[in-house]
């Protein structure tokens, strides 16, 4: 193979101007982190709400939750991002569509919302499973003390369900970070997109993607450690695993 290794490439000025190739990676990393964190907030919020709906006795609310989950879970993320980014502006009233297309950071918002909703379906399933795993008497005990149904969820059901699902939520956190790379297809300059740009400018494909790989490994390791710390903090003596 006639490949010219050049690990020093990252300190060269990039043809985009204004910085080195390393700076390109850093800017991509920033966007990856921003998209992942914001999408994860949406996923947790919507996922918890839908997971709770799915656990309620009312069959209509349960059906609503299930429809939401099945729709978002069974369509590939890539297709969903395309739908939000390319199709949505065409099917809404023209004025809204024009406004959407004129948004300067449209790829960023689309990535945050699209990824957030996609992940929220998976979180919802976890939360609903966690709720279902609790003894039925917990709900009765909460209500019997005079808590309203929302209070029973707030003070009894959810704190316990979250403890049950914390380990699976760790892998969903990692999935969110990894899936953020799909947003390069709608033109978001996140980490993977920046690695590819380096390759196109410099032809140093191995260096560029080795760097991207190491960065993904690093942030996912950090995310895992943080979640483990959270698990340990939330652990209750005499309850649950270990």
């Amino acid at each position, binding site marked *: 193979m006639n490949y010219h290794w050049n690990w020093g490439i990252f300190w060269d000025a990039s043809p985009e101007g204004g910085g080195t190739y390393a700076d390109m990676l850093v800017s991509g990393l920033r966007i990856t982190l921003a998209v992942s964190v914001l999408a994860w907030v949406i996923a947790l919020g919507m996922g918890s709400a839908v997971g709770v709906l799915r656990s309620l006795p009312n069959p209509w609310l349960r059906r609503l939750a299930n429809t939401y989950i099945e729709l978002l879970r069974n369509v590939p993320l890539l297709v969903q991002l395309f739908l939000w980014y390319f199709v949505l502006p065409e099917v809404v009233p023209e004025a809204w569509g024009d406004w959407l297309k004129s948004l300067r950071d449209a790829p960023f918002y689309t990535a945050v919302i699209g990824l957030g909703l996609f992940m929220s379906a998976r979180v919802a399933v976890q939360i609903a499973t966690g709720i279902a795993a609790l*003894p039925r*008497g*917990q709900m*009765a*005990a*909460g*209500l*019997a*003390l*005079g*808590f*309203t149904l929302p*209070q029973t969820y707030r*003070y*009894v059901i959810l*704190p*316990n369900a979250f*403890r049950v699902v914390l380990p699976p939520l760790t892998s969903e956190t990692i999935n969110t970070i990894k899936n953020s790379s799909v947003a390069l297809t709608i033109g978001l300059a996140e980490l993977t997109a920046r690695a590819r740009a380096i390759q196109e400018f410099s032809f140093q494909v191995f260096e560029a993607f080795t760097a991207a790989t190491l960065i993904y490994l690093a942030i996912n390791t950090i995310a895992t450690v943080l979640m483990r710390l959270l698990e340990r903090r939330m652990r*209750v*003596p*005499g*309850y*649950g695993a270990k």
Partner: protein
Amino acid sequence: MTDTIIALEHVDKWYGPSFQVLKDCTLAVPKGEVVVVCGPSGSGKSTLIKCVNALEPFQKGEIVVDGIRLHEKGVNLPKLRARVGMVFQHFELFPHLSVLENLDLAQIKVLGRGKQAARAKSVALLQRVELSAHADKFPGQLSGGQQQRVAIARALAMDPVVMLFDEPTSALDPEMVSEVLDVMVQLAQEGMTMMVVTHEMGFARKVAHRVVFMDRGEIVVDARKDAFFGDVGNERAKQFLSKILQH
């Protein structure tokens, strides 16, 4: 009459379209009385007691708790339930909260008590059930008997007008039954109104005013304690009694 804390009037309840679990149940629990409910498995005892604080709906008849009619429109069920203490077979302490927090939570969030007042009440009640040493432990670190005593204290913390018990000792190892019954006996002797589903006939003999025998959804016998243990007068109740008294 405000002296009746719980009144069931011709209560019918179905699970699903065809299975009638309660049949024309009529029963009154006056203030200060202890009523023991017994009967074979599946006879509807748990269902009956759950209907009393509206954890289960019923289709016909009426239940009046402390003057509040459950079938009346716009009844504030949480408010009603806050005044009715309930103790479950499987304790149902909140596993993520310490013993003291289990006692504090509803006082603060439901009754709106200040944190300090709630804590003072919790501490006093834990002392009363002799668990002060375990105040900062979590439920999972306690024995069954200890957990059930905490559960009783948690219900008492709400200053209930009546206490409901659904087989409070039947999930316990035999050696722990008496520590829970002792607390219940003391409560009865202090004049607490109680409705207790149990097969502990020793408890019934000691503190019950009346004993109710249920079979297949019906209240078959409702008698003063002496009459009940003297001569039940009902064949099925007699058979049931002779079976459980052998143990």
